[in-house]
């Protein structure tokens, strides 16, 4: 078991390094990174000076190592737009995105798991058809459009839910009360709808497949009660639940840009959107690096917890 953890960790390492190389190269994909900051009338001497200050005069591998060294210690440079350290802005934004992701994961995901299980148990029957219909709608709907429609219905027409910000009067200090919770409702639904569809669909497939296996028939024929059988079914479905839920939590964090933009939710996605428009490359780079690393670590945790649940899944 322990050697498996080490192996899994060693397997994640090259991926993490690959991710840093990719994120580092993002800055060079759009041409000379200094074009965005330099004024048009900058002289060649000015350009050279700026290059030296930022270290752009060094060869790429040296730049990468220096950038990586700083990034590991939490130094992502300074934002071109605000002049503040990227890490400060990003830290605040990540907390806000986490609030959104955790609320979605705690409300929408268990509900989706329940719906998927229900559909799997009633394979081919009416309950299955209704749930499957909802699930395929969930995976097909452009969630940013759904968010706008919800704003139209609940904010414009009915005027019962707020459509902007994360608290009354644009407050960014989040506390758990009704006034703040009201601001959460629409972003949580909009942000988690696709994930909920995906989770419900994979749960349905997993449960239906397990119910078809011989051991369930054996349990039934030996007279075990349905609730005890359900326990065995869920135990067998747990690795796939963990897998898909873990993946979708990652998507909630990384895919938050559209929802956060629509609801002006001051999270990492909102920051990313601003960074793209200001061509604020340090912010863009830092945000994407942190979100991707979060995803790598999440995958690692999911894989390891899957092996805890089911020892047979030790992967090579």
């Amino acid at each position, binding site marked *: 078991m322990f050697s498996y953890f080490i192996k899994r960790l060693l397997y994640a390492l090259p991926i993490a390094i690959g991710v840093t190389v990719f994120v580092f190269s993002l800055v060079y994909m*759009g041409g000379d990174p200094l074009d965005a900051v330099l004024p048009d009338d900058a002289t060649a001497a000015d350009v050279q000076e700026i290059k030296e200050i930022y270290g752009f005069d060094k060869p790429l591998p040296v730049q990468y190592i220096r950038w990586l060294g700083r990034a590991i210690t939490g130094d992502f440079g300074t934002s071109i737009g605000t002049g503040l350290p990227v890490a400060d802005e990003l830290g605040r934004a990540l907390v806000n995105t986490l609030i959104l992701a955790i609320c979605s994961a705690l409300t929408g995901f268990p509900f989706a798991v329940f719906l998927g299980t229900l559909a799997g148990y009633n394979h081919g029957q009416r309950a299955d058809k209704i749930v499957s219909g909802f699930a395929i709608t969930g995976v097909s*709907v452009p969630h*940013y459009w759904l968010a706008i429609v919800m704003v139209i219905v609940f904010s*414009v027409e009915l005027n019962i839910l707020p459509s902007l910000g994360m608290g009354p009067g644009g407050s960014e200090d989040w506390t758990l009360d009704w006034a703040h919770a009201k601001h959460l409702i629409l972003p949580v639904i909009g942000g988690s709808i696709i994930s909920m569809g995906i989770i419900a669909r994979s749960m349905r497939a997993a449960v239906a497949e397990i119910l078809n296996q011989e051991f369930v028939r054996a349990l039934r024929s030996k007279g075990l009660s349905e609730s005890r059988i359900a326990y065995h079914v869920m135990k067998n479905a747990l690795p796939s639940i963990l897998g898909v839920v873990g993946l979708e939590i990652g*998507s909630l964090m990384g*895919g938050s840009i559209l929802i956060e933009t629509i609801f002006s939710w001051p999270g990492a996605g909102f920051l990313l959107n601003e960074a793209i428009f200001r061509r604020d490359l340090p912010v863009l780079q830092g945000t*994407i690096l942190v979100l991707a690393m979060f995803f790598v670590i999440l995958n690692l945790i999911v894989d390891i917890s899957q092996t805890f649940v089911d020892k047979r899944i030790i992967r090579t």
Partner: protein
Amino acid sequence: MSANINKPRTYWQSVRSRLRRDPVTLTCAGIIIGIVLLSIFAPLIAPANPYDANMMKRLAPIGSPGYPLGADELGRDMLSRLIYGGRISLIMGLVPVFIALIIGASCGLVAGYVGGRTNMLIMRTMDIFYAFPSIMLAIAISGAIGAGIENGLLSLTLVFIPPITRVSETITVQIKSLDFIDAARASGASNSRIILSHIIVNALGPIFIYCTSLVSVSIIIASGLSFLGLGVSPPEADWGLMLSTLRQSIYVNPWVCALPGVMIFTTSLCFNLMSDGLRSAMDMKM
């Protein structure tokens, strides 16, 4: 299913007969063909010029005379813009998946067939891109290289290569382990012959079905890119961009503003339902 023993059906005959009895899949295929035809023949079908602005008709409600689906924030006919909008949206949905299919399937076939170090190299490289949720990867690349159709197509293609490679690799490994491949090798078939006439023929169906479900993802992400201003630029008619510019007007005429999203949703839903239908007609597990 009652099988007619005297006349055994070929695989594709039974797939076709299953599809014929699946009204949902047929309807979705019909709607998709309809949207494609509307886009191709947009200049003939659209009642008005999609770029003709009329300040007097700004945000005219649905059902206004001369503006059956209302008018947008610059007074342009919504119906015509929606018809024209399918052109870019469909291209952005289909082209990246198609290019990624060619590249990804080739990588997956090679990785799965050759195995060993080559497999490791290809699959571990793909794993790096798996560390990014697809929307984020598309936005990261588009955000870094800048807005525009070509850049959008490029970033979406890069998003879809890893999943297609992974699926193709899995399928190739499965087929490679079947007995008839051994039989072919024993009878002296060369590697290229085995790949071309045995593996590709059997792997392409499942890979293709997988790709039809990616088209829906591609349309949603592509419109999302336009929505963020990373796709086409105004005044071009594109569903995602229209949704984005009309968003400012939801307090004036909310339901006209929601229309472009209806088109994105319908197209993506039809691709997903069609993909599901094809999958069960071809009796495949993914």
